[in-house]
Each structure stands twice: as C-alpha cells, then as structure tokens.
C-alpha cells in the first residue's frame, strides 16, 4: 500500500513519488511540489492541524487532507 505524507512525523524526510488526486496535482506542481523532490516535515500544528514542510528550499503549510494526496517513499 502506498505511503502518504500525512503519516510522516516531525523531522521525517522522504521523496515525493506521486499524487493520488489529479485535481490537486496541478496546484502542487505550480508551487514546485513535484515528484522527485525531497520533503521534510518541520512542524505539526495542535490537534493534528496543518504541517509545515520544506520542499526544494521552500516552506509550506499543508492540511492533513492535502498531505494524504502526496505519495512518498
């Protein structure tokens, strides 16, 4: 079963493999969040809120629902 980014913990680093929701893929690609990029989880907000992740020198806040779309290895 594919591992998705919402399962990651703080300081976990992984490589983005693909996206499993085509309607979000375009948005991610526009921001430079692309397959092959390295992603590190830096912070998790309270009550399982958004995560701060760093990807390719940029930092983003992503919700759980968005991280579930990102397949990682």
């Amino acid at each position, binding site marked *: 079963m594919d591992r998705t980014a919402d399962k990651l913990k703080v300081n976990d680093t992984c490589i983005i493999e693909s996206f499993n929701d085509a309607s979000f893929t375009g948005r991610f690609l*526009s921001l430079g969040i692309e397959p092959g990029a390295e992603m590190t989880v830096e912070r998790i907000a309270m009550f399982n809120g958004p995560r701060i992740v760093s990807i390719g*020198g940029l930092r983003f*806040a992503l919700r759980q629902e968005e991280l579930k779309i990102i397949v990682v290895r």
Partner: protein
Amino acid sequence: MSIAKKLNIALIGSPNSGKTTLFNQLTGLNQHVGNYDGVTIDKKTGTMTYQNREAKLIDLPGTYSLYPIAEDERVVLNSLLNKKGSDYPDIILFVANAANLKKGMLLLSQLMDLNIPLVFCLNMKDLAEKRGYDIDIIGLQEKLQIPVLYTNAKKGDGIDALRKVIFDNTRKIGSPFRMSPSRIPTWIQEAKKVTGLTNDYATTLALCDYQRSALFDNAKRQEIESLIQEKQFNKIVTEVEDKKARLSDINALLTSVVTKDSKSNITISDKIDMVLTHNVYGTLILVIVLFLIFQGVFSLAKYPMDQIDLGFGAITAYLKGVLPDTWWQRLLTDGILTGIGGIVIFIPQIAVLFGLVALLEESGYMPRAVYLSDKLMSKFGLNGRSLVSFISGVACAVPAIMSARSISNKKERLITIFVTPFISCSARLPVYVTLAAFVVPEESVLGIFNLQGLVLFSLYFLGFFAALTTSYLLHKYFKTEDKSYLTLELPAYQVPSYKNVVVTLIDKTKIFVFNAGKIILIISIVLWFLVSYGPGDKMQQLEEQALTTITTENHDVVMRDLAAQKLEHSYAGRLGKVMEPAIRPLGFDWKIGIALITSFAAREVFVSTMATIYSSASDDVKTIQQRMREQVDFVTGEKTYTRARSFSLLIFYVFAMQCMSTIAIVRRETNSWAIAIAQLLFMTGVAYVASYVAFNYLF
C-alpha cells in the same frame, strides 16, 4: 518633442516576489485603484515614465501559473488572452524572487509561449546572496532569449535600468519556451476558429478554463463544450502533463545557471519560526498579536475619530448659524453632512486596521498566523485568515469584512463575510452600557468582578457564539464544488516596506469611501427625510403651538419637548407606530421602534435617539438612563424599562444587523444585493427570535 503612444505594461509574478514593492517603485504615488468587471478584485494601475514616454503599468494579481484556481488568478489569464481588452499588454514585466527562482519559472515559461514581448526582473537580489545563491544572469538571458535584470525593489536598485530596458524592448518577442507539439491539441486550428484566439498556447489555456472565463458568452461556451466533447479533451490531464514537462525543462535549465554554496541553510527566518510557529509559544504570541490589533483599532483610531466627530459637529453648527433655516439647509447639515460624516468617521479604523494587517503581511507573519489558526477555523467552514476578520470585527465590521478579501476560497470568504457582523462591534457598546443598568444592578461578584462588566463580556461572547454557530450551519448545508485548500507558502521574514503599508491603507480607504460611501450617503439622506418630515401639517402645527408657549426661562425644555413630539409625528415615528404590533411581542413600543429605525444609520445613534424621545437634557448616558427609569406605562402604571424589556432590547442589538455601512460594504465585497439583503433578513430574524425568548421566557 512629441510624446509617443502610451504603452500597456502588465506586471506579473507569483506571490511573495516583491511585485507590489516594484510596482510602487515604478509608479510612485501615481496610482489608481479600481475594480475588475464582475469580480471584487482590486485593479491597480499606475503611470510609469521614462524620458518623454509614458506607460500604463497594470499590477495584475499574484499567481503561480496560468491555470487559474481562484478568481484573482483568472483575472491574469483573461487579461493576457483578451487582445481587444483595455488591459492587454504591449509588454509583460515578469518579476521573480531571485532567492526562489524555481518558484516563478513555471509561470515565466507559460508567459513566454504567449508571443508577447517580455522582460524578466530578478528581484530580491540581496536575499538570494544571503542564502548563498549565485545566478549566471548572462547565461539565463542567453538560454531564455529575453532581457533579464537584477533589482532590489525595496532599495530601488536597478529600477532606472529596468525602465530603460522595458521601453527599449516593447517590440521584441523572444523565443517560445516550450511549444511541444505533443502537448498542443492536434485540432488546435479548429479550436482557434471557435475561440477566436490566434496563439496556440493561449487557445489551449482558454480550453482549460472556458467555463469560468469572462472571454466567452454562454453561446460560445456551448460551442467550445461541443468541440471538447467531440475531441475528448481532458483539461486536468493537459494541465498536469504540461506542467510536468515544463518543470523538467526548468530543472535542467536551473542546474546550468544557478549554483548554491553548501553552507548551512539555517537562516534567521528559520530561527524566528522555531518560536513563532511553536504550538504553545506561537499560539500565545498570536493571541497577543491579535489583541494588539484589536487594541490598536480601538485606541489608535479613537482620537482621530473623536476629532472627526467634533469637526463635523462644528461645521454643522457653523452652517446652521450662517445659513437660513430652510429645507435645503437642513438637508445639507442633517442629511448630507451627517452622511458624509458617517463615512469619514470610519477612515481612522479602516486605516489603522489595514495598516496593521499590511505590516503583518509585509513582514511575512500573516501566513504563520493562518497556519496556527487554520485547524480551529476550518471546523466551522472558515479559513485561518477569518480570524483576522473576527478580531477586527470587535472594533468595526466594515474593515473586518473588507479584510476577508485575502481568503481565496469563495465559500470560506462568503461565510466569513456573512457571520462577521455577529461579532459585537464598538458601536454596540453605547447601547450595551445604556441598557445594562436596567438588566443587572451595579454591584460586584466575589468582590472583584463588576456584574455589569460580566454582562457586557457575556454579550460579546454571545455574538461570537452566534458567528461560529452560523458558520458551522452554513458550512454543513451549503456544499460547493470548489475544494477548500490551505497549501500555503511560508515566505522568508523581512522588514516591512513602510511605503507599501502606506500605499495599501490609502488604497483600502479609497475603496471604502468611494464605493460603500455612496450607499451610506443615500441611506443617510433617506433617514434624514424620514425623521424630519411627517404626513400632513402636524409638524408645522406643533412648531406653531410651541412658539405660543415658549419663554426665555422654559426655552430649552420646550425645544426638547418639541423635538420629541416632532419625532413622534414624523414618518419615522409613524413607521414606529406601524411596526409596533410586530415588535410588541418583543416588549418594544413605538418609541423603541423609532430608535430601531434611526439606529440603522449607526448603532450608537440609539443613544441620541433615546435622548430625543425622552427629552433628555443631554446625550450623557447617566442622564438618559435617569429619564428612561422615570418612564411609566400610562395604562398599567408599571415601569417601562423593566428587566425583561431591557434584556430583550439588549439581545436584539447583539444579533441584529443595525448598520447600513455594513450592508453597503457587504454589497460591495460580494457584488450582490441578494447576499446583503439575505444577511440583513437572517440577522433580523435571529434577533427577533432571541428577543422574543428573552422577553417572554427568561425573566
């Protein structure tokens, strides 16, 4: 020497690229804020000059790509596709953050394929150097075949050279970035005939967004729909494959022109974020920041608002003294000037709020605030940015509703606008203070807490509760196709540009004064008419009667009584009496009915109306309270302002949308009278039911 034709220059870039700072540098204060047709998105234009030449610089909304997700991104695409539009550019000035070059390259690659002359401005050079980036600008220029320049817009470095290059390159179209035949539909010629566009890539983009594009009418959309279905065109696949292919080329390009030293990446921004995004410290700091915004809007704006109030009062008194006592004098002083005063008095609060919010945006803190509050707000169908609207609403709903523009998801934005007026604003405070005395006595609880103060706090809490409950219900029952997303970039912190802050608050103030202001002025004049005139000649009879009894000793008392009687027999008074059967279940009589009508102009007018109705010697709250305590029901002999009636009136003001300025700004921000009226009816309904329960069951 003749002046050449004025050029159109489109300033385009992704968010956090320094585009606004660059725009302000290139235009100075020679700017104008308008509106794009059909959407509540500010359109900023300015004039840029170079030698004898002028150009119109259009600051298009920040976007990450030409596949739009939100309305502001769609505005960018429409401007670039509509050759007949007034905003179609002669040249594009593209700006990117040199410290995050890759982020802007996707958009640049798309712009290059539109066959429009292009100049590439690499901004924030200092930030790139701090982060250890070295960009081979000559190599980049050779590979892209377009002019590439460094700038530091904040300091003004490179701006003069940029002007020269822009005006020297208005006819030079560079090579396209990527016109891969495999990604352009094979039937593109047919599509070009249907859409009326001439560029292959522009046509492809139009096919992906035709349903929401302002370029096409319904008939054309149906034609495009038929073509797409016939050719089985999949816009999502097209977009994804296009972006993937471009990013692959961009990665190869950047590898050849960008080097980064291998030193540690930890920047000052990273260190600050360790505190500001910390779950405990970050949340505490956020609460403090929001409290400071709230305090700032109240306290910083108070003095100028008081001065504006005094100023208009002085002008009105002066004009009443020098002009003859005619209907047009009263229209001017009590109608128009009052209306203008009612608009101008909001300026300090709007300026302070937007100045503070702009400071937070400019510094880079706002996305962190959104990150911290998003989880809580999203439970209620709101966005992290909604918190700014709620906190601002404690001061005033008008700027609070305007601040909701930063929420890109339409549903979240509309819900925020819809519920913000439930937050008890500063205008409600005089009403609460006046009536609280009739609800609870002035005593303390546990020897520390003032009971009336606790009642006031609970009223604020009630409003907040109503806002969240309504949000939750709207979120549950109104579904939308638009997905809600956060996907928020956290830019590096930077020292705010004070020029940008000042320009922003001037822009926002202008939008309020010239848009919502028109509606407020019209309603003010209508209300003036309703309280100044009545049917028949009863008002005149009252004046004549008063003149027969007036003496030097009783002048003030007679004039106060005359004012109360005229108000009773005015159209507003008649309306109050007509409404009385409807408001009697709430414990209200026609006098309160008049106050409800007049305080629609502004809630705090309730106090002065009560002063007039009860012939109070002054607007002082204690004096008015005393007069209200003396009122008795002539039929029953009981006190008029019982606890039940006072509480009912308090509850009504907690929930009711008693503010024409708010209605005006909601109409402006939603572009819809239907939403503004629905909101008015909904809040009035909630207020009615709550007051009924309070009057009939709680006491």
